[in-house]
């Protein structure tokens, strides 16, 4: 049995059929072809599947798909394009914040959620905001620098 849900994905309204027990992560990856959002653990411990739900960062692996009916979901695919990168994407590249890249989409979304709410975060606030996103390659330092640099850009 499948149910029909309507929601906004990266600014566009979609209507999809989905089995009610599917997670938002599975819906994004398997029905909508949005594979930028990654599954690293499936139980909400690694943050690789972080997306925005009505502007709030959530683990898409913990949200049941029917729950997003009538709401707004934002993923890495909505962030920027090849020709028009989001400032965070640019900053991540410039600061060496990307190594294997598997945690990157979720990390970018958590960074965006932080800056949307708090454009001038302190280093501790940045660490707190990305503390649910595990990264095994970078040791986080260059990611933190990439986010801090945005703050500086905004302040000019």
């Amino acid at each position, binding site marked *: 049995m499948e149910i029909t849900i309507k929601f906004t994905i990266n600014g566009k309204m979609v209507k999809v059929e989905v089995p009610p027990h599917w997670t938002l992560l599975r819906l994004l990856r398997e029905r909508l072809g949005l594979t930028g959002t990654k599954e690293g653990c499936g139980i909400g411990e690694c943050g690789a599947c972080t997306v925005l739900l009505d502007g709030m960062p959530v683990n898409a692996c913990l949200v049941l798909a029917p729950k997003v009916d009538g709401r707004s979901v934002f993923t890495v695919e909505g962030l920027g394009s090849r020709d028009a990168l989001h400032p965070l994407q640019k900053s991540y590249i410039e600061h060496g914040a990307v190594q294997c890249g598997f945690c990157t989409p979720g990390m970018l979304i958590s960074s965006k959620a932080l800056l949307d709410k708090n454009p001038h975060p302190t280093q501790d606030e940045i660490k707190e905001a990305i503390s649910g996103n595990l990264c095994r390659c*970078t040791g986080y330092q260059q990611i933190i620098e990439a986010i801090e640099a945005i703050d500086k850009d905004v302040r000019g």
Partner: protein
Amino acid sequence: MKQVGVEIPKVDGLEKVLGQATFGADLSADSPLQLRVVRSTRPHAKIVSIETREAGKVDGVERVFTAKDIPGRNSIGTITKDQPVLAPDRVRSIGDPVALVAARTIGAAEEAAKKIAVLYEDLPSVSHPEEALKPHAPLIHQNGNLLIEFHIIKGDVHAGFKEADVTVEETYETTWVDHAYMEPDAGISYLDEKGRVTVVCPTQNVHYDQKEVAAFLALPLEGVRIIQSATGGGFGGRLDITVQCFLALAAFHLKRPVRIVYSREEVFQVTSKRHPLKIRYRSGAKKDGKLTAIEVEILGDTGAYASYGATVGIRSAVHATGPYEIPNVKVRSRMAYTNNPWSGAMRGFGVPQMAFAHESQMELLAQALGMDPIEIRLKNALTAGSETATGQTLVASIGIGQTLRKVKEWEDRHPIVKIDPERPYMKKGIGIGSMWYGIGNTGVANPSTAQMEIDPNGEVRLFSGAADIGQGSDTVFLQIASESLGIPLREIRLIRADTALTTDAGATSASRQTYISGNAILNAIKNIKQEAIKEASQLLGVDEKGLFYEEGKVKSRTCLTTSLPVWEVAKRSGKILRGEGIFDPETTKLDPKTGQGAPYATYAFATHLAEVEVDTETGKVKVIRVVASHDVGRAIHPKNVMGQITGGVAMGMGFALMEEYVPGGMASFVNYLIPTSKDIPEVIPILVEEHEPSGPFGAKGVGEPALIPCAPAILNAIADAIGERIYQLPANLERVLEAVRKKKAVISDQ
């Protein structure tokens, strides 16, 4: 065309920030069948029967495979091939694969997997290496439970200890550590247009995978194609076969695309781990701090299969001295089979474990002699003309002294206040950890090959079989090619890590790709330049000797206006200009009895200083700062090098304080903790560039060195803070509290 030493954007960065890099689970295939592995629930047992009938009846199931379906060699492994892909008649550890299900949906595959009934007859099992080596221990493999015994003998340790004014002897223990690469293993397989069994998945070595899969399917090498997908980390865990053989077996039989995705739980339970080592270490030194002798006994647990056990056993022994010149050395290193999870390669191949031991010893000697920790290290540090424990005389690029001096300078400028009167239960401490690390495989040939092409349309292509697993080798190779060819980086296309298009570059391991594949690329470029000069000589009617290559052009030595861009040489000659490159570092085999020889062509060196704060009431250790000084030869991409260092520090901190895989217990990030953004210290990297004459632009390597000195520095800092040493990793809350209690007991006794 300056590219080396310049911080250009990482070439794979754009795809990755867009979320468009294709990792194992992102690969698409035309309605693939989903695979699921059935695994052993017993540590050691005979398989009496495998009942698959019920599983076959599940709606959507295409086929169930067992060992009987394997056409070729059902055993894999880097050196000793003792690990079955599907257990034929016996399992040797929990998690051993027993059967494989292919079904139209994941749900059907899972349901069928549950319905496969394996009847076991339990065998006595052994879970400690000491037990495994006893005379009547249950045999795990036919040739006995001792995988390897390796010795290093230099000088006369008896005489050395006699000469010593102080001796220190302790035993150190480490445990299983998981790579915890963020991407769970996954991949697809299909028959390509040429009928080749093609596997696409994350890996650290496509050409090794190809050999294993071909032998497994009894196909010629050309019948198998391995393509590396975007790879979400490796750290050694993807040097061994993970999903390749399962995928290939199903695609080979069913002639349909197949797909597998491991859960995180499965990754924890079935992939390799860092070898637990038990190290008994005795050191002797004179009053002035000069080391006179060491005697070291290493016993490792390779688990149920060999994997990289021999490599780790040998490398541990070779690195037992640390970066110090010691005249008398005796090391015995053994690796035993047990029915525990199998240990494999993990960032450092045993050297992180050894560094924990030798750096603790240095600290204990410094205390016994009343010397400064850096001073005693400097007194013994390897330098030009030093002879290593294997009798190799070092000649160049020996930066250990410099890394120590840089750390000392930093320390002198930033004295710490140890006691906080507001919080007397918080103790601060600082500690030093140093290391050396031989670049490339130990005492064996480990060549890399590469090709450079410029075609008549002007396309410039670089071919490398090396797998970039995030560390940035693709970027570094293109920098090397761009600078030495004199052609802008964006105009060079890199064709990479696909066995159908590239040749063997060896594994992305042992911190070897920059040094070895970088050199292979330089050699390919040397040859393509020669080729361009040869062709230009015909086009221009000038003798080859009168021409030279500079900045992308063939120029005349005599006539300043005569100059042909290399693409024009290709265009006008109508030929593809091609240069083949190979590089194999100069090493000698180690003597099987004494371990003497020159196992590596070059070594990296590093020193970390860690500053910690220990809460003596809870046992919590906060690492405040790590000053990480690294001799990398030359930083071809400084930002990548920094990234390796900060990442290595984080992983080293996990190794020191929190990471411990308990077999049969935890299988998620809920219990297996790795450092988060809130745990990490401030990292202050200091680059020391001691030019390596044989390195590409002077470079060596940094991937593993970044991790190795961190845990020892932290453990020494904890000892400095609380006045009591911890000899077993990880130094978790319980062990720290126990050490605090021990210290208090000693004080109240006095």
